[in-house]
């Protein structure tokens, strides 16, 4: 689906989903949830790859590659650190 109206529809529905899924979360999980959400927006890596793949000239390519590195750090680091946090909760819920 593309085009302005389609994207707007997707946007509005995603807002509701985002509100809904986290509306009743205990304080215990606030930190891992924040960290997990943080990792998800690392998907800007997809955007960084697309833009770099179309870049022309040294300046653009360099900027694009910096974006790729930064986005990778966000995504990979985000998921790894969240997993480490959650690792500690395991085995305590008999």
């Amino acid at each position, binding site marked *: 689906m593309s085009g302005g109206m389609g994207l707007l529809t997707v946007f509005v529905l995603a807002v509701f989903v985002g509100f809904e899924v986290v509306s009743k979360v205990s304080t215990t999980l606030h930190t891992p949830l*924040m960290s997990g959400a943080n990792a998800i927006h690392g998907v800007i890596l997809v*955007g960084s790859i697309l833009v770099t*793949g*179309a870049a022309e000239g040294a300046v653009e390519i360099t900027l694009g590659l910096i974006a790729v590195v930064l*986005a990778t750090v966000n995504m990979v680091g985000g998921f790894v650190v969240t*997993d480490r946090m959650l690792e500690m909760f395991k085995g305590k819920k008999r």
Partner: protein
Amino acid sequence: MSKQTWVDLAYLVAASCFVLALKGLSSPKSARNGNLIGAAGAIIAVLTVLISADLHHLPLILAAIAVGSVAAVPAARRVPMTAMPQLVALFNGVGGGAAAIVAFLELKNTGGGFPLIASLFTVIVGSISFSGSVVTFLKLQELITTRPVVIPLHPVLFVGSLVGAVALSVVCFAKGGAVDAATYAAIGVAVLALVAGVLFVLPVGGADVPIVISLLNAFTGLTVAASGYVLDNVLLLIAGTLVGASGTILTRLMATAMGRPITSTLFGALRGGSTAGATTVGADRPVRSASPDDVAILLAYARKVIVVPGYGLAVAQAQHTVRELADLLAARDVELLYGIHPVAGRMPGHMNVLLAEANVPYEQLKEMDEVNPQFATTDVVLVIGANDVVNPAARQPGTPISGMPILDVDQAQNVIFLKRSMRPGFAGIDNELLYQANTTLLFGDAKDSLTKVVSALKNL
């Protein structure tokens, strides 16, 4: 099936993974799987774009991904759990930075109109998120002061930098985002937004920094959503919007736990009343201190003990010693609970992570609402490295922490404070509780003190 169709399908799968990830992260049982599902979605998304898109410079891109992974994984694996909040802040900041760069590079391709506006929005908000996150990192790492910093004319400069960024955006928009003139304007937009981000976070007090991280997290989500719109990529739009929406809710939940509206958290110092901490020095007032042996005796003959852990416990790495103490007391049939304040530690839920690391049974951890009625029937409360979350000053108006719900520790028979010094807590205000008649202080590093108490307890 055309190529575009299966690309769209792969993105749909990835987007579904992200929704399931957030859903999973909202409950302790499914949290870890939730995170892994999210990671799977991210991998699907990246593989899809690498395989399907017509990319130049592919080797360079793959190298950049390798560099990013090599930098991120050891940092995420090795960071001490106490330093985790600042790492999350940093990860968030670089994401915002990446979004800003993507938008900047897209300016000339948007062809004006709404996509150009969305790009400029992303340049501004992404830059704010980047520089703001760097400042929160510096604050939490204590490389700069954790106290609110207000420079002369702070509000004017802050608003000025924002207005300047928007004004230059209008210039850029008028030039249609084309090269040269518009590019220079866009560089100006980015620089001013970076300045605004720094000025935005500087006046926030140390205790409130987690709320700002959460807010900046939501900001970055919005920039990713806007990038999705610009690049006509539904996955980015959905993922960014999910994070923006859930981050907003999370920020509000955290602010509620602190008992203050979000606006006073963010701008309080500019009006002279956040955790600015007009330090009331009470150094000369008498306090009662005791030896580890006294504390051991008090604990050994108590019926019910509540441990209130704070950031000091984490810094001293005393979680494991607390566990040892708890086991000894359990052997003596002493009922022991942990009273966890929502913002104990440096982030909401941070303390639960630290105690879980020390294998403290989950069911002994009591949230504030659950534990507060129990203090009146408690013999001994052991406050380990916590301060602001038990400070009765929160009940009176006019203090930096006024209105924040606290643990009603003062209702217990005896209160034992393990403290390094008489220094006030993170919020920078003196604690009346320290001078109360039923309060005893045990000075020293939390871990040393606890080890001494444990060995005294063994000899009883």
